[in-house]
């Protein structure tokens, strides 16, 4: 019972920190900017190139691509935001000494870590779901496109954030706050590029190159989840019409996620969180 109280207290504290440190405000401003820009872009696209003059399949394909592109922007904001929030909140607190008085209370370290993680997960997931939903509404209002599986896609986007954030938490228990943010975001970017490279390899039928993407998606499941999310945002019927010419394009996904991959992502998060807990437990403050 006291354990649950500790976890919830620390989770609430982490959310309060995000609000007080103006992280929420900064993210809100960035998101409104991105939404406004994309709204303007979509409306110009509809007006000038005349989406209604294209065949409806092409129009849906264009809308899918653009939606995925903007969602990638959102997931990047979420990734940067949470990774740079996770670093200071854990490593920063141990470095500055804030953790000393907290951990000298009758609490277990893994409870404090779980509280931090839970607060960050709530914050990151709530952000991508809300911002993603807003983006879908912007697209609906401007070009009248509504993704086929928005709920699943937003959930996968949130899962991607959770994966990255768990990695950032692990890193922040072993390296300095700044390094943990940089490494987490760097790995996120590297996996995405590896995914694109793998996609290109698959398009050209080069198995060796294609494997790069597969392996990177196993090592860090952010890119795999991102591709699953894209699949939920795009109109698969339109893509099927276009066929092979769009294969390997980074802002379209050719297959939905398998249950096995989702299970792997869950196991990955549990494993990395466990490592973070062990590392934090053994650390001398």
């Amino acid at each position, binding site marked *: 019972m*006291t354990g649950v*109280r*500790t976890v919830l*207290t620390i989770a609430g*504290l982490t959310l*309060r*920190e995000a609000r*007080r*440190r103006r992280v929420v405000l900064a993210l809100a401003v960035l998101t409104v900017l991105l939404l406004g820009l994309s709204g303007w872009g979509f409306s110009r696209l509809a007006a000038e190139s005349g989406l209604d003059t294209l065949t409806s399949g092409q129009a849906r394909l264009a809308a899918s691509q653009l939606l995925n592109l903007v969602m990638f922007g959102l997931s990047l904001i979420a990734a940067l935001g949470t990774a740079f929030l996770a670093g200071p909140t854990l490593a920063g607190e141990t470095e*500055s*000494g*804030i953790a*000393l*008085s*907290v*951990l*000298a*209370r*009758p*609490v*277990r370290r893994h409870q404090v870590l779980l509280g931090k993680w839970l607060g960050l997960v709530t914050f990151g997931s709530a952000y991508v779901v809300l911002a993603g939903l807003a983006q879908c509404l912007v697209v609906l209002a401007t070009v009248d496109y509504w993704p086929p599986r928005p709920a699943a896609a937003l959930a996968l986007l949130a899962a991607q954030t959770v994966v990255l954030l768990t990695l950032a938490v692990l890193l922040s228990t072993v390296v300095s706050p700044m390094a943990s943010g940089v490494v987490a975001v760097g790995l996120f970017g590297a996996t995405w590029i590896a995914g694109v490279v793998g996609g290109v390899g698959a398009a050209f039928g080069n198995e060796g190159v294609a494997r790069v993407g597969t392996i990177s998606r196993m090592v860090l499941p952010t890119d795999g989840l991102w591709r699953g999310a894209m699949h939920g945002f795009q109109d698969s019927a339109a893509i099927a019409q276009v066929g092979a010419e769009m294969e390997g394009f980074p802002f379209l996904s050719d297959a939905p996620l398998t249950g096995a991959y989702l299970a792997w992502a869950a196991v990955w998060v549990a494993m990395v969180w466990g490592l973070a807990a062990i590392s934090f437990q*053994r650390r*001398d*403050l």
Partner: protein
Amino acid sequence: MATGPTAGPPADVAARETAARLVAELPPSSAIWASGLRKSYGRRPAVEEVSLEVRRGEVVGLLGPNGAGKTTVIKMLLGLVRADGGEAMLLGRPTTDPAARARVGYLPELFRYQPWLSATEVMALHVRLAGVTVTPAEQRECLALVGLAERSRDRVGGFSKGMQQRLGLAVALVARPELVVLDEPTSALDPLGRADVRDIVLDLRSRGVAVLLNSHLIGEVERVCDRVVILDRGRVAASGTLEDLLGRREVRLHLVDASPAVHARLAATGTVEQTGDWYAVTLPVGTGGATDDDAVPHLVRDLVALGARVHAVEPGRVSLEERLLDILRAGATARSEADA
């Protein structure tokens, strides 16, 4: 086949009940009990075989030069640093159990509190984490005790170092502790603040709260501590009450016209060392008859009555500082001799 503590024959039950009664009748466990604590950082040993005890309601000072391992010992007691060896108990529970810290207040040497919270919110957070019920009014009182009543609603980020240390003191006191560990509690405080800390420690002692005080300010330790533990290079170099460590008090007298009767009176008080007209007389500590405080006035009155002309009376006492330096220098000499 594993055997557990299941109910056995009636004789066993009775024996267990007797044992439980005996345990319950034991005097309350020490506030701090540590035995053979060891810690190395890499190959460098920081703490070697440190054993110490702080009894309930006792104020113990931890002294020693920089790098002696004082803060490491404190952090091992609080579970912030993993000990390589040895064991320790806080308020009767092993330090490996977080519940041992339920009634412990701690002011770290590196005192920092969430800068985005107000002082009141920091207090509420610590009360929640400690798992005790402390009313907001009591929390405010605690802030007022350290002189932060006016700033309770301000963000900690805007506090000066001294104010943050005062807040840390309030945090250490807020959850009704039975043991308070203060690591350099006055490092950022002005003389007024130091006096406040001294009053707070004395008040804690009067309420039966045990205090472990790590401080460089020897005068501070000398004023408030019942016992002192001196650490040097990760080991306990000396420990004991101030009287144990400082030995007997002495008084130096400048006397002219000292008759044999005067000499006899001096000799009756204690050992006398004479240098010209100066007499250094050791005084017995707390012996029967005249109390310690009365020994000097009684001696002077008798000497005057015996016809001695008293030009000067200087109370002399080896200060804790001198004693500390002696102990540390003796340790250094012993080491250099052992190396040679």
